[in-house]
């Protein structure tokens, strides 16, 4: 089972790398949706390997598919459709980092996550691939920092949340169900509120250009 988890973790890292290199917003949303399905699959497999906690993990997997895999991407896509005539052409025009730079930084973060984990937590946890969630977390941080497009930044934040689900399930045997459920509810609320704010923000930028920098300095 450990090897299957490693393969799923590898897929998640690859998907996040693809998000890092992608400039079209709707494709980033699609990649996030796929990665959420992988997280749900991971939870199902985890449930089958832990008979005592199986039911709760299956429910959690269902919630993950429903909220992260379906509802959140639908909300984000709707927000895109309501704002742009051709939502499939919405892209990050000037990412802070080019593709070459982001490949290098992403690889450096994966290695960094691995070394930090090996030299700090591995001694206690004894899980060989425990660095995967940390690498995912660092990748997601890069996505938030290196992009200006609010939709992509939001996706970065959601990938971080997926990394936490991986971390809690794989490395630490999960959080209490009430906390996981609360976190999912919060996440859903946050996405709804964020999509409203993003819509107003992007609309204002389209009309007036970026005029906020001066007032929010210092």
């Amino acid at each position, binding site marked *: 089972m450990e090897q299957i988890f490693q393969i799923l973790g590898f897929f998640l890292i690859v998907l996040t790398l693809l998000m890092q290199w992608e400039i079209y917003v709707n494709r980033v949303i699609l990649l996030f949706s796929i990665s959420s399905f992988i997280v749900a699959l991971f939870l199902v497999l985890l449930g089958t390997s832990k008979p005592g906690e199986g039911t709760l993990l299956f429910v959690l997997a269902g919630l993950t598919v429903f909220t992260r895999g379906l509802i959140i991407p639908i909300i984000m896509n709707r927000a895109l459709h309501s704002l742009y005539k051709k939502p499939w052409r919405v892209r990050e025009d000037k990412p802070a980092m080019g593709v070459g730079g982001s490949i290098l930084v992403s690889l450096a973060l994966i290695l960094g996550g691995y070394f930090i984990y090996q030299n700090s937590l591995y001694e206690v946890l004894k899980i060989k691939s425990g660095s995967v969630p940390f690498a995912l977390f660092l990748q997601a941080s890069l996505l938030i920092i290196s992009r200006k497009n609010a939709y992509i930044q939001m996706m970065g934040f959601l990938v971080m949340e997926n990394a936490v689900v991986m971390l809690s399930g794989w490395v630490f045997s999960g959080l*209490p169900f009430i*906390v996981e459920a609360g976190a999912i509810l919060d996440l859903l609320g946050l996405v709804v509120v964020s999509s409203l*704010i993003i819509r107003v923000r992007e609309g204002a930028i389209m009309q007036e250009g970026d005029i906020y920098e001066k007032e929010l300095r210092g």
Partner: protein
Amino acid sequence: MQENIHLLPLLCSFTGALLCLLPVRSFDKIISVIASLAAFGSVIFLLTKENIVTDTYYIDGLSKLLLLTIALLYLATVLYSLAYLKHILNPLFKNKLYYFLLNLFATSMFFSVSMDNIGLIWVGIEATTVTSALLVATENDQVTVESAWRYVIIVSTGLVISLIATTFIYGASGTLSMHELMLHHPNNRVFLLGILLGLIGFGTKAGIFPMHTWLPDVHGKAPAPVSAIFSGVLLPVALYAMARLIQIHNLPVVKIFCVTLGILTVGVAALMMTVQNNYKRMFAYSSMENMGMVLIGFALGKYGLLGSVVIIISHGLAKSSAFYLTGNILSVYHSTALHDVHGVLKKMPATGFTIFLASMAVTGAPPFAVFAGELFILKEFVHQYNWWLALLIICFLAIAFIAVNVRTGRMVFSGNPPDNNRVFRSETWVPVINLILSALVILLIPYIEKLLANLIGS
């Protein structure tokens, strides 16, 4: 069953939120006033009850005092909003939604300071982001919406760090119950890392350096009542979570970590105040400075903790008063730039006089209780560390005091007001009452000490 009485404040505000959605004209305002009054009344009632620690609730003196501060500022903010919202020309949404979110925001804060489970405290604090993000964007211009977005993305990212911390704590100890963790917890690297990450994560929400960058943006652009409730209680609620983590794992390394973060926060805030041209951002940095002091006090414990709680209550009341009054000033001068605002005392005597006193109060001028709180913290600091570092903190506090009061004094006393007849029907009585209450906090110190007796060991 008896223990569920502690849900009263939360139920009052939650019911208020739901009733706000009813399609009856002005019902949202009336219901919000009633809900906030009922919540305040129920908190006063809870103050007379014994502390309670169960698998669901953890309500001791610290929680009670936080509940009281939240209830007071919730009521004051609802009352001030009644007049202030009329002056927002192009709101992002209807007043009904504003009051709905404000009531929910109070509910999430009541929830956060009542729970025993660290995971649920996290859920509550994350819920404060969900319920308050749109409140920040009420005034609906590009800069305001941008600040709301920065708030969402920075604070949520910080809170993911505290969710990871929660995972670490649960993974290492097998429980998230605070009272169980206070009795016994593992002493390994994973647990320690969980505590430290939790401090950074919740510190983001509390405006602690280096994750404070959202704070001046949001306080600078949010409507006055929202800035007031953010500064007065949202930041302390996040600090409450930090205080509990410190209480659980009170090792020297955790203490030093918090004291370092606290000193850096006070220092950065004080220096930033000296270069501010925007009075709302200046007051925002002042809140950051006070939160830095509160964190130092929580880390020191004993009388440092007493000082922190005194600052939370007194600062909350005085700073909310200052922020409400910035709303009055903004409505008349139509600018948040310091160089555009002169002669406030001539134009709006009550506003001018009260904001000057409020700025003195929040920067620690005697006889306001912030001064007493800072003295308690510094006394405990000298006792546990040394004079040199205490002197450094005093220098930062002095810089902040001069920066804020000189600028506020210039706004209030110097020059002549603009030659227009625009008079804002200001709600000056709410900030005045808050300021008076802030001054009276000093008389309540023995009572606060009594409530915190089990924490400060007296």
